[in-house]
């Protein structure tokens, strides 16, 4: 029983790591997608931005698929409740991701409908960037579940104040991260625009975080008693300060590191106030926790072995790929 408990905790952490990895990696290309019309003014600039993310966005999105797969495998009951309960909202995310996945390749090869695919790229990036936070806010603040842990709310139940504020915070964090990456990978007027947006988004993340803090205070007062949540909140502000200072000094690489740190600290806050829940229920006795929604000890053990063998390799060759494509992006060359 003790090993099982340990494994559940490890997998809670690992699912978190995968989702945090997703937001740090795919986060910047979602952010660039959502900011695309504000960043790039000419076709050359658009191509530069697309080439900055072209070779890597797909690998980045695999973090979401793997995070989803890990959630399914490690906590199938939570996966089932959330995915069937948030049906229409997740369908919107899904359709956005489907269109976004083909949009860049199609935009390059289908000049007649370039506008359509560009809109798919922008919308397909902005919508998930907003809705991820809304979904997370819901499972954190608590959703109405019945005795069989089936969701009994509706679409509008999802649009309560705390989830909406979390959605805005998430969106701002994606935009911050996207503009930081754009600044790092581009030059000239494009970089200047990215830096301006990054500064604005830095302030916006700070403001949205304060708003989220208030929302948590009002709707989840118990969370204020958790010490780690205070520590991670401090790290959010510390990372933001360092981000703005690095940006001010023109150190784009360092700024990008700190925008990643902002994201990771935000995940730290969520983990601190949410643990050991996966899905908090309005009636706390019905909440899905690591204890009542996980897979068997054997499944968790097998998965842990798979992750221990596989993930170091993934991280290794992902770093290799980023090194291959390091440096500023250019509008021309191979690929799309």
């Amino acid at each position, binding site marked *: 029983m003790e090993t099982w408990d340990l494994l559940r905790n490890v997998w809670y952490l690992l699912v978190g790591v995968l989702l945090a990895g997703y937001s740090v990696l795919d986060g910047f290309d979602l952010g660039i997608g959502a900011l695309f019309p504000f960043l790039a003014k000419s076709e050359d600039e658009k191509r530069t931005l697309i080439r900055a993310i*072209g*070779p*890597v966005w*797909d*690998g980045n*999105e*695999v973090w979401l*698929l*793997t995070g*989803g*797969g*890990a959630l*399914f*495998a490690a906590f*199938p009951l939570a*996966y*089932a*409740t*959330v*995915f*069937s*309960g948030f*049906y*229409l909202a*997740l*369908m919107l995310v*899904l*359709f956005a*991701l*489907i269109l976004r*996945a*083909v949009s*860049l*390749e*199609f935009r390059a*090869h*289908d000049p007649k409908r370039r506008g359509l*695919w560009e809109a798919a790229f922008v919308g397909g990036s902005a919508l998930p960037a907003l809705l991820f936070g809304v979904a997370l806010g819901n499972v954190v603040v608590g959703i109405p579940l019945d005795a*069989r842990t*089936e969701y009994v709310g509706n679409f509008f139940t999802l649009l309560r104040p705390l989830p909406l504020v979390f959605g805005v915070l998430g969106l701002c964090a994606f935009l911050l991260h996207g503009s930081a990456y754009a600044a790092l990978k581009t030059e000239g007027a494009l970089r200047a625009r990215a830096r301006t947006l990054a500064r604005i988004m830095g302030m916006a993340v700070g403001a949205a975080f304060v708003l989220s803090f208030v929302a948590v205070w009002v709707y989840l007062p118990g969370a204020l008693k958790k010490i780690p949540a205070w520590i991670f909140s401090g790290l959010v502000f510390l990372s933001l300060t360092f981000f703005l200072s690095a940006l001010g000094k023109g150190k784009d690489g360092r700024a990008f590191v700190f925008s990643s740190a902002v994201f990771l600290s935000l995940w730290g806050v969520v983990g601190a106030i949410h643990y050991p829940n996966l899905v908090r229920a309005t009636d706390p006795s019905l909440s899905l926790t690591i204890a009542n929604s996980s*897979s*068997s000890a*054997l*499944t968790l053990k*097998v*998965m842990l072995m*798979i*992750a221990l063998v*596989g*993930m170091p390799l*993934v991280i290794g*060759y*992902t770093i290799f*790929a980023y090194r*291959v*494509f390091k440096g500023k992006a250019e509008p021309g*060359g*191979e*690929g*799309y």
Partner: protein
Amino acid sequence: MDAVFLARLQFGLTAGFHFLFPPTTLGLSLLVLIMETLYLRTKNVLYKDVSAYLVRILGVVFVMGVSTGIALEFAFGNNWAAYARTVGDVFGAPLAAEGIFAFFLESVFLGILVFGRKKVSPKTYRLSAVLVFFGAHLSGLWIIIANSWMQTPAGFRMEGGRAVLEDFFKAALNPSTVIRYVHTILGGWTTGALVAMAIAAWLLLKGRFPEKAVLLMKASLAVFAAAAVLQLGSGHAHSVQVTRTQPEKMAAFEALWETQEGAPFTVFGIPDEKNGKTHLAVRIPNMLSLLVHFDPNGKVLGLNEFPKEERPPVFLPFASYHLMILFGLLFILIGAVGVFLQARKKLPGARRYLKVLLWAVPLPYLANEFGWISAEVGRQPWAVYKVLRTSDAVSAVVPAGNILFSLILFTLIYALIGAAGFSIILRTVKRGPGDEQAEAQKGEA
């Protein structure tokens, strides 16, 4: 329309559309690997150009596979929540493993193939082709593991109405995994290779890039002919396994109503489920027994052997299974004629054969889909064979109207990206394997 029907229709549509792309990826990634290896060995730039051409097509096919694959992972949670709750302990792990072991590999190194030709050494580029090939095939393995567990579940016990993993290797290497994997991969090679042959044929017919077209034709014909012949063996082995592990499914494939010693193979017929008869049947006596038991008088179980509520539908599995076999035999013929023409050095000028290749492109796709339909409809009424009924696997909280709504949107979006993707692939093909060479000459001069 009830939720179960709509959820099945949605999964069928989304999985069926998705299944156009991964098989193509399997075959094309093999051909890219072959071309890159030949380029590295011979330093002949023509191979590099052909490879770059295939990589451009592969890039489009791959993003369509990625884009349509996301929906399937989501589906197990949104439409099939009871399924996820009941068997998630066993079924989730292969999906997560696919991401960790295969999908990352494929995506990251395809990024290098598409964008990185000039940024890495030729050896690293070839290594990337190896890893894309490897990733694509490993990805297929984990998906087939998951799907085969639905057909022939093993390595688990039932506890409080939920399947609990008991032995990972028994679950992963369940009685149908290996043969279904081989069968699916060979189907993919046949598909990708026939697409490549048709492209080469089109270039030859138009008189464009004849040298490169011949190289592409030779390599893809070799893969196609070999895969088509091997597929006959793997298909046979698969049907022997189905007879052993899912006898009612084989009975449906063959519309065999009564148990028989010395059962015939029904070449043609129209199964009539109401009356338990096959109209206009053309049968080869004792052939089915011989095929599945290697004994002309072997006993094959008929549908009437099984309780009515545990029998699969008959018409759809029967028809799709037989069409698949018909196309499979046709592929062997196409491959044999190609090898014959090639041996007599007449292939590049054999215009009629080249035109046949153009028209044959839809066939491997149809064969893949028919094989998949017969496998999955033949599994009914079970989501997981003898463990969980399909009707008990759907989400309790999702109203039929929501499924219908998402189904309509899926149809519209897939029609849009299907049409756009198809025209983009055509355009990429029409550009020909040319730009690269001009660039290379400039570089060398």
